[in-house]
């Protein structure tokens, strides 16, 4: 079968693309490597999505968005995209479960956690190296831990961990946090958070198969030291998930897809929506908005080609 639209990624942008595509009469398949929701599904509570004055669970909202798209006829395939051929007609999207053929593509693959890239990080992943404090914090109750990063997500993780761990070392390469003021103020009341500024991580040390410490360098003095910790929580931001495109779509220097107001990319018939594209504000509400526009553009493309 040849679909009118193949949506890569089923976060809020992808699910909204699919909803709008099927409601405008196009056949549509979503290819998603994990499950509905993307980053949103991992957000315990969304407080700024319009229409939910009491807040809403990101996971629950994701399930509902997915259900809504499916009820109008969108299909979901759970698989990772391993290869693409956008020059073919129809376009080909390859996965371990088989090839998908589609006349147009909406890339809504979102972002993924950036890695430190230092020795020990991959070795101790799941054994003290974590990218989700709310998931794994409980395993380190009463222990000393480190959070790496200085943005909002690092601040939120450090505050959460301060409530359950003994000491939280917040390691940041600059001399001040980038986090929004509201988060920074909150730290004043937390006496078990220790700031380690101007410092970068050289490596993560372990013993008996689990993390035992984080080795850091002070970028201004050159001093090196090891902080004994049981866990290292990495929160140094997100990076666009565009590797699978293998340079076939124009990206900016951060790896984000360049798309215009109609969500059109450098490749005819290929559109982008949500966090994966270059934009100023990455939020659920801007992702759903992109998705609706991308679906409209895909409809126009399919009508004329």
């Amino acid at each position: 079968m040849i679909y009118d639209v193949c949506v890569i990624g089923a976060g809020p942008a992808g699910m909204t693309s699919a909803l709008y595509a099927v409601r405008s009469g196009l056949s549509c398949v979503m290819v998603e490597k994990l499950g509905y929701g993307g980053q949103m599904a991992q957000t315990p509570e969304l407080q700024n999505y319009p229409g939910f004055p009491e807040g809403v669970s990101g996971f629950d909202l994701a399930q509902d968005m997915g259900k809504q798209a499916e009820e109008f006829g969108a299909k979901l395939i759970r698989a990772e995209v391993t290869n693409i051929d956008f020059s073919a007609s129809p376009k080909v999207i390859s996965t371990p479960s088989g090839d998908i053929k589609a006349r147009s593509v909406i890339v809504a693959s979102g972002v993924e956690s950036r890695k430190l890239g230092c020795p020990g990080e991959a070795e101790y992943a799941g054994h003290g190296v974590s990218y989700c404090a709310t998931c794994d914090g409980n395993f380190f109750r009463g222990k000393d831990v480190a959070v790496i990063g200085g943005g909002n997500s690092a601040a939120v993780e450090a505050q959460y961990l301060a409530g359950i761990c003994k000491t939280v070392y917040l390691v940041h390469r600059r001399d001040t946090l980038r986090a929004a003021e509201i988060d920074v103020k909150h730290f004043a009341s937390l006496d078990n958070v220790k700031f380690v500024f101007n410092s970068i991580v050289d490596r993560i040390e372990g013993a008996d198969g689990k993390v035992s410490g984080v080795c850091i360098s002070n970028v201004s003095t050159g001093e090196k030291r090891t902080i004994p910790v049981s866990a290292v929580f990495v929160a140094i931001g997100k990076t666009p998930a565009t590797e699978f495109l293998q340079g076939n779509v124009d990206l900016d220097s951060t790896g984000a897809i360049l798309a215009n107001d109609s969500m059109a990319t450098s490749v005819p018939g290929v559109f982008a929506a949500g966090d994966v594209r270059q934009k100023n504000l990455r939020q659920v509400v801007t992702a759903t908005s992109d998705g609706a526009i991308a679906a409209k553009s895909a409809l126009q493309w399919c009508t004329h080609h």
Partner: protein
Amino acid sequence: MTEELNSKDFQQKVLNADRPVLVDFYATWCGPCKMLSPTVDEVAKEVSDRADVYRLDVDKAPDVAGQYGVMSVPTLIVFKNGQPAKTSVGAVPKQNVLDLLD
């Protein structure tokens, strides 16, 4: 939904099993766990002729989670002949889950 295990069942259903067993160590408060569980359900159906698949709530069975060094959820462990054979950490694509059972 994949069958839930408790500490008491673990010996009988996992360690004494005569075929490979995939255990999804998860927590109710973990977003990536929720994202992974439909994938585990799909895999359970596909491999039902050659492997058993269970899920285990680390809050209800901290003894079992501790014994196998689970420090992150979700963690998937495949047991063969009563021993952990392969492990995977975090929400992963379906193919990676299937590969654990190869």
